[in-house]
């Protein structure tokens, strides 16, 4: 059988960065092909080249035996190629339904006005977006935006679906649901290409999996074989590989990182024995909906808290409230004895609370280095330089590219930049929302390694994380939010001891 999609020695460079390096790959009919690889390996670039958003420097793309290299992305979409964007790009001022309608009415298939509404409604329903159909897409939180990406791609009635990390940031039950959706799609589309850092999705959905690194194909084979490959384990999977031994960390490197991280740390002397952060009976209401319903908790200096919960439970609202980015309907939040309710986000940062937000606002007009510096504007020049070096020691790729635009990075690299920027203000408390979003497993290992060092030096942290095991391994205390309330709280060891209880709370 001939391949549905065939890429022949594709090379794509962005300036000096070679994102794809004479890559050849085939997608067979009926196949779901997984694509994995470290952050910046060229996975999203691959989808861009197939979809037509990016023009390769050389090489050709064939769809159904026809060379489509010269076609516009609109024509490719009409031929049946549907893709999603890793960092979602909804039309923010259109409603969710209109976003889907747009795709439905511009696909290669004619759809009459009468068929349109049930068709759009069906897609929204299937992806759980129906309740938000009439909201403007700009109001959707990140994970629903990812769903909307999928909804729009489906509305094209595609023959081939290219999905770029739609499973990031989901708790287990949600991942299962997504896997069910993907499996049900197998009968509707001819083939799929799935980029994921969530190995559950890869191992349960993909027939074959390709591994990319530095724009080159490392291997492509049946999924179980690929995941068991020791090369893939060391290159990509890190500690989550089946074969992984307790990772032999390079002690010298670790000590080096620790030493340089001290400049990122400014631990205030405890004022008294009062908690560093006190959240008291906080309510937040959006429109007619209560996102938080009387949340109270304390954070002690140097304490690390894991904030767990399903999507829509209120974690992001909590993080945003701590950052001063949403007004409290009632209740108080005080930091180091001072109330921060009503302060602007920059004033909150100035007090020593940094945040790494889920929506990560990376400035494309600023270079990577300037983006970082924007995180710690107040510091003196030599302090800034020290902190920059510290961040660069955690994420060397940022140093290599420091003069490039902040958005000229892969999705995972932008997440690294966001984490680095949050650390640049040398905070006393950092709030990380969806910290491992878009990071490859091995990059997550590294980030947690650095977080461990930062925690040990006395910085308090609140970590919102979907990977329960990772978060609990780091945290001193964990809380589960569901439907705007804290429903479970305890030491990681207690929660881990009763995994069933925990999973029932996580929904």
């Amino acid at each position, binding site marked *: 059988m001939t391949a549905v999609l065939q890429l022949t020695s594709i090379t794509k460079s962005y300036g000096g960065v070679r994102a794809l390096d004479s890559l050849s790959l085939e997608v067979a009919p009926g196949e779901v092909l997984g694509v994995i690889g470290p952050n910046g390996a060229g996975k999203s670039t691959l989808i861009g080249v197939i*979809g*037509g*958003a990016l023009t390769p420097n050389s090489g050709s793309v064939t769809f159904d035996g026809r060379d489509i290299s010269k076609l*516009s*992305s*609109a024509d490719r*979409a*009409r031929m049946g190629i549907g*893709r999603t*964007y890793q960092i979602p*790009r909804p*039309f*923010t*001022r*259109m409603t969710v339904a*209109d976003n889907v*309608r*747009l*795709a439905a*009415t*511009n*696909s*290669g298939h004619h759809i009459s006005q009468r068929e349109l509404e049930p068709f759009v409604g069906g897609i929204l329903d299937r992806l759980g977006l129906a309740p938000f159909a009439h909201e*403007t897409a700009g109001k959707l939180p990140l994970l629903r935006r990812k769903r909307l990406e999928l909804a*729009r791609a489906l*509305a*094209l009635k595609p023959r081939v679906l290219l999905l770029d990390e739609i499973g990031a940031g989901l708790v287990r039950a949600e991942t299962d649901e997504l896997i069910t959706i993907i499996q049900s799609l197998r009968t509707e589309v001819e083939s799929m290409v799935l980029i994921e850092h969530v190995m559950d999705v890869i191992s349960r959905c993909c027939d074959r999996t390709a591994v990319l690194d530095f724009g080159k194909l490392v291997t492509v084979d049946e999924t179980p074989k690929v995941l068991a490959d020791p090369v893939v384990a060391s290159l990509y999977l890190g500690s989550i590989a089946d074969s992984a031994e307790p990772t032999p960390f390079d002690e010298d490197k670790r000590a080096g990182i620790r030493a340089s991280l001290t400049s990122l740390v400014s631990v205030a002397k405890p004022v008294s024995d009062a908690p560093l952060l006190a959240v008291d009976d906080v309510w937040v209401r959006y*429109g007619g909906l209560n996102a938080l319903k009387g949340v109270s908790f304390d954070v002690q200096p140097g304490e690390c808290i894991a904030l767990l919960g399903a999507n829509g439970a209120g974690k992001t609202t909590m993080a945003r409230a701590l950052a001063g980015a949403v007004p409290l309907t009632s209740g108080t939040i005080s930091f180091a004895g001072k109330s921060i309710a009503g302060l602007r986000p920059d004033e909150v940062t100035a007090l020593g609370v940094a945040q790494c937000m889920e929506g990560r606002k990376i400035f494309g*007009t600023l270079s990577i280095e300037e983006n970082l510096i924007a995180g710690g504007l107040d510091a003196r020049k030599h302090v800034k330089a020290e902190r920059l070096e510290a961040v660069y020691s955690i994420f060397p790729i940022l140093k290599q590219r420091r003069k490039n635009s902040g958005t000229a990075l892969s999705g995972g690299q932008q997440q690294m930049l966001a984490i680095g920027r949050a650390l640049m203000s040398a905070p006393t408390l950092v709030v990380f929302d969806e910290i491992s979003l878009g990071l490859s497993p091995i990059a997550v290992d590294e980030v947690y390694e650095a977080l461990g060092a930062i925690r040990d030096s006395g910085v308090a942290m609140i970590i919102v994380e979907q990977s329960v095991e990772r978060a609990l391994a780091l945290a001193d205390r964990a809380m589960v939010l569901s439907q705007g309330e804290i429903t479970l709280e305890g030491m990681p060891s207690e929660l881990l001891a009763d995994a069933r209880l925990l999973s029932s709370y996580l929904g």
Partner: protein
Amino acid sequence: MKNGMSVLLSRIATPTRVGRRDFIIVAALAAIAFVVPYVAGTYQQEVGFRILQLGALAAAWNIAAGYTGLVSLGSAAFFGLGVYTMALASNAGLPIVLCMILAAVVAGLFALIVSPALFRLRGLYFTVGTLALAEALRIFVVNSPWFGGQAGIFLTARAPKAFELYWIALAIAVLVIVCVLVLLRSRWSYRMQAVRDDEDVASQLGVRTYRTKLWAFGLSGALIAIVGSVQALNQGIVQPNGGFGISWTIEIVSVAIIGGMGTKVGPWIGAVFIVLLGEFLIQFPEIHMAVVGVVLVLVIRFMPNGIWGTFTLALQKERNFS
């Protein structure tokens, strides 16, 4: 550069749905406007003409700029094409209505011809590129032998009376409104908004962005040209500096921004505001433009969505919180 433009465009409100109700309201308003010449004097008819003329221009411009993100400063080019087409065609003895249609066709063809070069430019670059259009046409008209040079062309047709002009302007205003409403009801409305908000994503979802932009730009230009053709009748003489003058462009943009870009009603509110302000300051021509400038700056600073956009947003908020 692109950012500055996207900041401007990000302030445009998304158009609300268009229903049968909108057409009924338009019909009712048009019926009221129709009787004005029976109850009001020449002066009122002239003011009415100005309001209808400016409103139609701004509403037509809005199709490209407000809904599709093609912020053009080339309106005077289309306007001038309309002015000259009317002069030449009516002097050749064609009936007035045919001259107007011809003006629209000429403008549409002009859009088609300039689009390959212009649509290569995005955002602010596009805007700057359109600035050249009117000037290029003006120079062409001055220097070629067919258009009467600087002196211009006299229209041989009988000069219409004030009430006739008023009714023509009213008919054209209704035409523009109906075009906008029909467009907003159609699938083009999503395409246009999508192209405005993120052209690359629109294309990835199957929208033929070039075609979409061409339709919007061409329709906008054609409607502007029709209004321009009436201006030729109004003046009785057409001249390069009047027809292709930058002041038309400036007026159109001011009206649309003050009223509210990307809204159905904004351009008309803006036109009423600007024309009445002009009448109010008629004794003080030396400060007129300065006042308009100050108002423009104040609106951009304090009402980024224009008068109408701000008003509707406030209404929406009111609804959300109650």
